[in-house]
């Protein structure tokens, strides 16, 4: 190992740094474009709108990021969002928000717990478990509501929803605050606490984690519980602000969150990623959509661009790995002489030709 290889690694490192933080750049670019060209984008009202739109999916994305970090998948977050919304508002008229909201959130955790137990203890693939849970919950929601979406038109309900939607300062409403607190909290937790780091270890290599004395099953289960928790929080708050819970509240969230989290740079393979990145990814998409609407363009554009971005990111990641695999293990000192070697080969060919 000599300096050259070290230098090479230095360069590599800078690149990987940019790569690791690409989502912030991406966000910056999108934001800049919209700020410059989209009509009425840069009004504090509109920016607040964006933040408020972001809130639900951003909250759900926290848990989902964690799930990917431990190397699992949770397809049920969309329905958990809806479920929590329905429970939270459905029970309000009986026990008030004071009781119904905690119950809704606990329900979310409970669902997460079940997912987690089935994955960790019964050893069923999380893809299967959560896919089944998705179907099951969807049915449950329709059954308990008998097809009625739930709305509250009582003054106090409106009071709450107004409070949640109130603009404290530009960009910030109470619901946004809650989201930001959760995002910040989990970012710190995952980045700077031992337990947080352990989640990465579990996802990075389950066996290592286990051998270094971590209860990997526990970590997996906790991840699912947290995923259920954040999804539920996102759902119930959204419903409260709207003073209504529809039965397909979270339907679009799943694909939206998956795309965002991946674009944010969290890997399906586990052990990589971060909550803050996911948050900015969601923000980036919302800014994009917001701008698209401001431009007066339709969904087709929105869907198409979302697809392009996602595809680009996935391809980029795949391709860098592809390249990496091809070059890993090259000897620096040999690489140095490659050009000169090529030269010699060319001349040799030339001579052969003559």
């Amino acid at each position, binding site marked *: *190992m000599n300096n050259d290889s*070290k230098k090479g*690694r230095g360069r*590599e*490192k800078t690149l990987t740094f940019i790569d690791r933080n690409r989502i912030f750049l991406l966000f910056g670019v999108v934001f800049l474009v919209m700020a410059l060209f989209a009509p009425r984008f840069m009004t504090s009202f509109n920016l607040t709108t964006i933040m408020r739109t972001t809130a639900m999916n951003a909250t759900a994305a926290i848990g989902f990021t964690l799930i990917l970090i431990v190397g699992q998948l949770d397809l049920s977050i969309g329905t958990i969002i809806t479920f929590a919304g329905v429970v939270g508002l459905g029970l309000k008229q009986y026990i008030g928000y004071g009781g119904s909201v905690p119950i809704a959130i606990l329900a979310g955790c409970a669902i997460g717990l079940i997912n987690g137990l089935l994955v960790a203890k019964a050893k069923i693939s999380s893809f299967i478990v959560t896919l089944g849970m998705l179907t099951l919950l969807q049915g449950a929601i329709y059954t308990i509501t008998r097809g009625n979406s739930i709305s509250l038109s009582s003054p106090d309900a409106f009071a709450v929803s107004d409070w949640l939607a109130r603009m404290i300062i530009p960009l910030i409403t109470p619901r946004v605050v809650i989201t930001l607190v959760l995002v910040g909290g989990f970012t*710190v937790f995952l*980045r*700077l*606490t*031992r337990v947080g*780091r*352990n989640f*990465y*270890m579990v*996802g*990075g*290599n389950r*066996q*290592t*984690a*286990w*051998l*270094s*004395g*971590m209860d990997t099953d526990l970590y997996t289960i906790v991840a699912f519980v947290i995923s259920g928790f954040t999804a539920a929080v996102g759902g119930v708050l959204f419903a409260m602000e709207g003073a209504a819970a529809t039965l397909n509240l979270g339907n679009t969230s799943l694909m939206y969150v998956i795309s965002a989290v991946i674009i944010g740079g969290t*890997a399906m*393979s*586990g*052990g*990589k990623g971060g909550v803050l990145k996911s948050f900015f990814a969601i923000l980036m998409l919302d800014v994009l959509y917001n701008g698209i609407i401001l431009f007066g363009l339709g969904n087709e554009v929105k869907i198409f661009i979302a697809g392009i971005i996602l595809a680009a990111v996935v391809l980029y990641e795949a391709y860098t790995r592809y390249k990496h695999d091809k*070059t*890993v*293990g*090259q*000897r620096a*000192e*040999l*690489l140095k*002489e*490659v050009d000169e*070697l090529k030269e010699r*080969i060319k001349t040799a060919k030339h001579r052969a030709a003559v």
Partner: protein
Amino acid sequence: MSDQQRVVALQMKHVTKQFPGTVAVNQVDFDVFAGEVHALVGENGAGKSTLMKMLAGSYDDYEGEIWIGDRQVNLHSPAVAKANGIAMIYQELSLASPISIAENVLVGRLPVTGLGLTDKRRIVEDAKNALERVGLGHLDPDMAIEEISQHEAQLVEIAKALWNEPGILVMDEPTSALSREEVELLFQIIERLKKEGLAIVYISHHLPEVFRIADRVTVLRDGKKIATRAVAEVSRQEVVQMMVGKSIAEFYRHESHATETETLRVENLTRFGFFHEVSFSAYEGEVLGIGGLSGAGRSELGRALVGLDEVDHGMVFLHGKRLRISSMSAAMARGIAYLTENRKSEGLALRLSLRENVLVSLVPRHTQGGVYKQSLGEPKLQELIAELSIYPPDPERMMNNLSGGNQQKVLLAKWMAIEPRVLVLDEPTRGVDIGAKSIIHKSIERLAQQGHTVLLISSDLPELVALSNRILIMREGRLIREMAKEESTEEKVLLAANGEGV
């Protein structure tokens, strides 16, 4: 070793561990003194790894007593084992590839600030120190494991184990992926640790290493303990006999079957950055050894020959005809095959059956009019199971349920099945017990006898010297030397591989 420091660090009293249907470890007594290296040898499936996993706390259902110092402990989870100062260095690397070196080394014991938050600065510092101890000071602790080479990773693994400042250190085949230099470094480290009073359990198939580093050696066979002896008082032969139960020559120089007819000729073969301008020829019935340190480009050369990696320059001739190898299947069709050095990750489909793993190489050949006839492979399969005495001889058995040695035999069988004209063997006996080893060696000889050409890439010098008719030495991606059988000795090969001597 003077008597006053003979403190018993670890004692296992008739421990037993059963798996469904087998008793992997049967009433074994085992102890280690502080400041000694106690080697544990035995064939694959003898129970070494099981015994060690027991120590690591991988099982919560073993029988018998384990004493650490003067306390009896229940090592029912890795956490407990760690808490009792037991550290393991595993054969299969136990590092998380997407995660930084630093966090892998310090896993579970990340330094924290007063606020209970992890301390980035100290993480890097500590990791650096840990790496220094194994001579990896130049590595940047922030790099992810996936960005460093395999032998670097092996050393990181060791650094990780040492960082836990264990009282008892268990090493399971720690040298399997190391170059000679690194092995030397490791041995120095071990010596130092001995002086610091560590109790070290050293598992290896590599008897020379055992005799070089160990104070005592315990032999296991079929899960039972055969004997514990002071290394000074026992000979290699005796140990081997205890291991296999009967006396066999560990190595025998086999006579050459090499002919004058050239099978393979390689001219200026080059893959930029891996190996440059390699030229040589090999002959019918020849076993052509390729020696060198790990990472010298030997495996890359082998892979390039069968088209697993594309070549940037150079030519390959088979029986005088220029070969343009586009893919491995093409190479196989021409009669060139490559046996990988990584049995588990590259060699075998552990989820599939023995039959499927062996016959996969024959699929193209046994496909007629688009229809694959498995039955055509059946006789060959039986023949190979018999020749290599693969146990259990049940073609339906899933690979994961076979012992390492038998897995390696299956891997070899896969390539013997197509009877290639040129067979490249990359570390054909890595991590394999002596019984399996000698069987594999016999098969290699048989291939040579029948006029096949074998390219033998091996870091196991005795093996290399014993089997090869000629030995090519590679160093840092270049072919630097060729040795005739007569002049080739372990020492010479070693020196050459290190770029010394003429």
